[in-house]
């Protein structure tokens, strides 16, 4: 009877094991089937991934393709055009040499930080991460990024972009590309209302009022309570002369009050707290919104989805000074990974030719000032963003930036939803920030 007990236990285990054993092979078939089946560009993107599954076991170092070392990249762009462009560069790179085989993996933005945190705990990270610039400092503090000082010439890069990946004078990353926010406006709507593009807050308020009708709101800016919302709010804050850490000042309160007035006057929808930048863009091209704050990466999509829409871009109207926020991603090399291969790829990807290709496809501006200034024609819709970049400042860099950003985004959400006055919201945020930045 004893043995029967053991047998029944073993049987249960065997079934479980059988279930598991079946999967390795079927996973493989699926991959190959996919590469064979699809003949379009999509398949091309995935073919390196299909060659790689062997490495998902323990054998990451032995690459499948003829002794080449596998190098992995994580990125979070969900836009198809971005993914295709990046994969194109990777394909070219893989074809250009035989030492390394680069693969890029998409990790959704909402999951990116979590995956990096967990990966860091488990020592299971990619070799290169392409991450949002304000988070860079936190991961440097985590100690997972390789010191790249002296390995890349970033002398001609925008200072803010370089600062975002510099900690204590050491360079821990290379800017991928930069962007900033500016004001888009619907030309036809402005013409109809007989208005010019606004340049100051007062003009903006006036124009927005004139543009608001039953079905159109004057202005939209993404105000989601997270980093994305903070990104869209800080230009207004900085325009008053306040910095990220002095929202409690008179200037900070003025910025919050302005946002509050926009909502109270009905020229900005409260729904903005649920609209991502993509949603804001969709509202703009659907003609529900006359002006929006947004970035240059929307331009390719807008041109494709609404080719007949007449819109223009101008500087974000100012309070006391023009101001915008520097966005974009940085490359970072993970230490302990395949550093040599990662550096080799980065050298390739940051060459002028590749940068131009990527920036063009992404709707980004090169982080290299020298390239950026000649990147666009004078009448290109991107050109205003290049001008706006002169006024753009980075967030942080600060390891605790996520907490500072959290306090700021809470403040403007309180004001927009009317749950606190600008004064109270500013004071509360200031108290939180003072607790973080001593």
């Amino acid at each position, binding site marked *: 009877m004893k043995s029967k007990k053991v047998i029944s*236990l073993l049987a249960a285990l065997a079934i479980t094991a059988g279930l598991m054993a079946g999967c390795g092979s079927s996973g493989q078939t699926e991959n190959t089937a996919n590469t064979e089946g699809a003949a379009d560009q999509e398949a091309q993107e995935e073919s390196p991934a299909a060659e790689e599954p062997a490495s998902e076991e323990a054998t990451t170092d032995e690459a499948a393709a003829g002794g080449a070392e596998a190098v992995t990249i994580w990125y979070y762009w969900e836009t198809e055009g971005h993914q295709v462009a990046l994969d194109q560069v990777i394909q070219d790179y893989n074809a250009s040499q035989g030492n390394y085989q680069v693969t890029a993996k998409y990790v959704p933005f909402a999951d990116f930080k979590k995956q990096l945190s967990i990966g860091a705990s488990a020592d299971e990270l990619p070799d290169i991460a392409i991450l949002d610039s304000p988070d860079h400092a936190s991961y440097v503090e*985590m*100690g997972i990024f390789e010191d790249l000082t002296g390995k890349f010439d970033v002398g001609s890069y925008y200072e803010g972009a370089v600062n975002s990946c510099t900690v204590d004078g050491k360079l821990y990353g290379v800017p991928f590309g930069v962007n900033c926010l500016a004001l888009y406006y619907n030309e036809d709507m402005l013409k109809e209302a007989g208005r010019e593009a606004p340049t100051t807050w007062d003009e903006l308020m006036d124009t927005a009022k004139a543009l608001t009708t039953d079905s159109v709101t004057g202005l939209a800016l993404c105000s989601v*309570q*997270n980093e994305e919302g903070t990104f869209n709010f800080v230009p207004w804050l900085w325009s008053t002369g306040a910095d990220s850490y002095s929202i409690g000042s008179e200037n900070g309160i003025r910025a919050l009050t302005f946002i509050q007035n926009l909502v109270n006057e009905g020229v900005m929808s409260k*729904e903005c707290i649920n609209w991502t930048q993509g949603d804001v863009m969709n509202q703009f091209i659907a003609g529900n919104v006359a002006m929006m704050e947004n970035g240059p990466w929307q331009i390719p999509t807008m041109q494709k989805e609404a080719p007949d829409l007449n819109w223009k871009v101008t500087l974000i109207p100012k309070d006391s000074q023009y101001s915008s926020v520097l966005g974009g991603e940085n490359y970072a090399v993970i230490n302990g990974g395949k550093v040599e291969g990662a550096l080799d790829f980065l050298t390739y990807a940051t060459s002028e030719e590749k940068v131009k290709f990527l920036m063009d496809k992404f709707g980004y501006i090169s982080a290299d000032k020298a390239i950026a200034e000649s990147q666009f024609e004078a009448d290109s819709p991107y050109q205003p963003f290049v001008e706006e970049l002169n006024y753009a400042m980075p967030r942080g860099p600060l390891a605790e930036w996520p907490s500072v950003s959290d306090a700021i985004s809470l403040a403007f959400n309180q004001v927009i939803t009317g749950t606190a006055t600008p004064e109270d919201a500013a004071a509360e945020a200031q108290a939180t920030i003072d607790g973080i930045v001593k």
Partner: protein
Amino acid sequence: MGKVKKMFRYDNAGVLFVLPAFIYMLVFVGYPIIRNIILSFQDVSAGNLVRGVKNFIFFDNYLELFQDSVFRTSLFNTLRYTVLCLVFQFVIGFALALFFNRRFSFAKPVRGILLVPWMIPVTVTALMFKLLFATDIGVINYILRSFHLINKNIEWLTTPQTAMFALICANVWIGIPFNMILISTGLTTIPKELYESASIDGANKTQTFFSITLPLLKPTIESVLILGFIYTFKVYDLVYVMTSGGPVNSTHMLSTYSYKLSFEMFKYSKGSAVANVLLVILLVVGVFYIKATTKGEEA
């Protein structure tokens, strides 16, 4: 084998049946629990997650939490949300169970189809309700407008009070079938003769409901409420997709706040502490459940 008198026997061989499942859960869930407890007593943030010293600061994280207004809101929200969801889904589920207990031709098939909401992935449910509660295009606002109950669209998901209401609606929608079907089951176990003799004694429907139905359903009701409590209390996906804890943190729950601290703000230890508070509350409820359901068993 000796004679057995009871429905069960005292025999440690029973352990062997339970052990495989128990070990499986111990491996995959036991370790996380222990790790989480340790983490909550340390000071782990971005700086020392991978390297560097992890200091034990014991209860400092917990003390800090109770100073934290978002934590207090989350705790209060979680309780309020759970209680309100339970009340509504229980009452509606109970009423439907009573209704479907009458044997009309459609009773069985319709009751069956009513289970569907419970089977849909929660993320999908959250998406659907986000659409229903949208301000401008939301059909709920339209219906209220057409009945002249409101004359201006309600901004459901961007106003703290109504956002919570929308979340509760979505969760009640998922919970109604669960409650309905379990109470239906309980109802079928009540012997018909009891009702017959009650009607001979001249009792009316309300009287029989309170003197027969409710008392005999007590064990079912206990189980339904406690299982419902556990499933509702740790809500995560629904809130994450519908409101992400907003507007202005007004719909943060313990689970979403713990997630935010751990994975968005790099405050790993503090996030663990929040999770532990949640766990302790559920544990108390769990012990209560075990007590209630094993009462009367000889153990």
